[in-house]
């Protein structure tokens, strides 16, 4: 997981939004295809969509492991893959969830609470020596928050990986490469 921030108009990653049939083994099919063809998955999130027959897998791939074209075409060949959209990071909204437990003595707790409030995060649990907080938002924002929390001593950290949808402006470019009946 990289925590580098980047300029908005210089994407460092590709986002593939893959609509699949909601069937056993489909995630294994997708992830093993990436492994088999030598591509690294940066992050991956999967969940059902509004249609219970379909799930959406959001896969983030490093720009360096290009060309993306070949892996997209190979993905198309999976029978369970219904549709693939490549989302331009500049023209899509991305969200991620972070949860962290920070070791902090009671007297310093206020600082972590304040930081969390500034980022509009949530306090999930409070213990004697530690506090668990959560934050959802753009991956950049989460990177910043994570970096600041490090100063206090992160005991455990979990991020979900990005999920993304195209922006709703006129220029939203949904590069739909494969349309199934379901779309």
């Amino acid at each position: 997981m990289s925590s580098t921030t980047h300029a908005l108009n210089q994407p460092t990653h590709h986002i593939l939004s893959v609509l699949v049939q909601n069937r056993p083994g489909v995630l294994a099919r997708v992830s093993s295809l990436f492994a088999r063809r030598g591509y690294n998955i940066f992050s991956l999130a999967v969940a059902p969509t509004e249609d219970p027959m379909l799930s959406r897998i959001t896969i983030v791939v490093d720009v360096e492991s290009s060309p993306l074209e070949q892996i997209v075409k190979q993905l198309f060949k999976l029978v369970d893959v219904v549709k693939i959209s490549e989302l331009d990071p500049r023209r899509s909204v991305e969200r991620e969830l972070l949860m962290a437990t920070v070791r902090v003595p009671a007297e310093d707790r206020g600082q972590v609470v304040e930081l969390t409030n500034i980022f509009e995060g949530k306090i999930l649990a409070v213990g004697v020596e530690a506090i668990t907080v959560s934050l959802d938002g753009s991956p950049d924002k989460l990177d910043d928050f994570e970096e600041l929390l490090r100063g206090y001593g992160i005991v455990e950290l979990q991020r979900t990986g990005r999920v993304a949808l195209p922006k709703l402006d006129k220029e939203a470019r949904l590069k739909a490469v494969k349309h199934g009946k379901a779309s």
Partner: protein
Amino acid sequence: MTQKITGAQALIRALELENVDTIFGLPGGCILPAYDPLLDSPIRHILVRHEQGAGHMAEGYAHVTGRPGVAMVTSGPAATNMVTPLCDAYMDSIPMVCITGQVPTSAIGTDAFQECDTVGITRSVTKHNELIMSADDVPLMVRQAFHIATTGRPGPVLLDVPKDVLQNSMNWHWPSDEEVLDSLPGYKPVTKGHPRMIKEAARMILDAKQPILYAGGGILKARAADALRELAELIDTPVVTTLMARGAFPDDHPLCLGMPGMHGNATAITAMQKSDLLITLGARFDDRITGKVATFAPDAKIIHVDIDPAEQGKVRRPDVPIVGDCRLVIEEIIKAIKDLLNGGEKQQDISQWKSRVSGWREQFPLYYPANEPGEALKPQYCLEQLRDGAPEGTILCSGVGQHQMWSSQYWKFNEPYTWVNSGGLGTMGFSVPAAIGAKVGRPDRTVWAVDGDGCFQMTAQELVTASVERIPIKVAILNNSYLGMVRQWQEMFYEERYSEVYLSPELPDFVKWAESMGCIGIRVESPEEVQPAIEKANSIDDRSVVVEFRVDAGEKVFPMVPAGFSNDDVLLHPDQNGRREFLR
């Protein structure tokens, strides 16, 4: 009207409805329920001696008939034995449906006896696979499997069926075409080429000065041999046929240049290399064809017709990519060319190019030094004699190695679907079971399997299957007592340091072995014996025949483009090297 039957009965009925006439298989614990209704079915079952044999037989059957081959085996070790044929079929785009037994659904995941994660293991070597979890799903899954295996880019599909799914009762329902298509929203192969791309291709073909038709196995899969011939004759352009496309264009046609690639002939290799337009039809720029990719056909524009979009741009970026079925696209291209010609356009004069190509053909025929009296028998001579003695329409199967390359080089394939080999995966041991499958598919034809002594020892036991099931094939073993191709590489690239390639000159006794399996065994040690032995083999049609040719172990396959070399640096037979400058 529904009718309660078991999952096993549904499976066999579904196979019958898919017009399956033959299953190659071997029963075991978990698949047992499916073997019971098979007794009452008109489907012929061929009981193999090893599951790998069943898989290759299904491939051989599919190769020569165009219909999907079907293999059925049990769970665990039977499924793992099927991995090689599945991968082989996947690499060579062979339509095949494989049914494996699985432990009961309640036992899945418990490391039960003969349990393995068949679907997981075979995921990357199948076009698609499914674990059937309910007897009610059996008919739809079978229909899907056959649909997927035979449409688009063909390939193997595996159905893993737990024992209780076979035993449970279900309501029989045979899904309609529409139900099958609706159940596969993500599977829609494109067959019709893009009209604008087809026009562009037609124009490019007329404008080319040095065109070559680069025909691959896709021609055969698409039943496009006639269309290819029409196109070639229309534009009077030479054709190369890859290892997978031998027979897709007749070798005796004046435009046929034969096989290009690592062991292709110098003309086919050089013609591709010097061309200004490669009209690529159902071929995939395999590394065995291109040699070093960076220097492959540097001045050629590329038209790439392929039903699999992932092949376009995978190795070489096409100037005109056309996704579609080869036959349909070629027919459209022919039409587009005729339209242009009727509109007054003219094709470039390619006579100079063609005379250059003819020059290469004259200078660089396939060559091997003739047998001298008392010298060891040349394997190429054996192949020439086999070819000349073969009855009309003979199907040739081969294993993998030197004998495979000589087969492809020296045979004359004048008819499609008469050549069966393992191209992509390079599976030693392919030929005997594939030949049996081919003979089952085309009982009217003579089937010769050309094998090496190394290959033969991997799958020879299937000759027992052939004898018991009365499937008479003929096997020619080119016995050089070596893993010949590996030996050739060690001689040429490892300073003649021969490491673990010497088999044995005396063991096994192939004649006795053949006889023990119910075959006629013949040993040939000198050139004079070759022809009579072949005549004898061809005259026997009530049982299988194995002819062992004791051949020269030092003979190497030429020409050769060593791995990683440019096609420009093809190694000719040393006796031809003096004429090298003519290849310019």
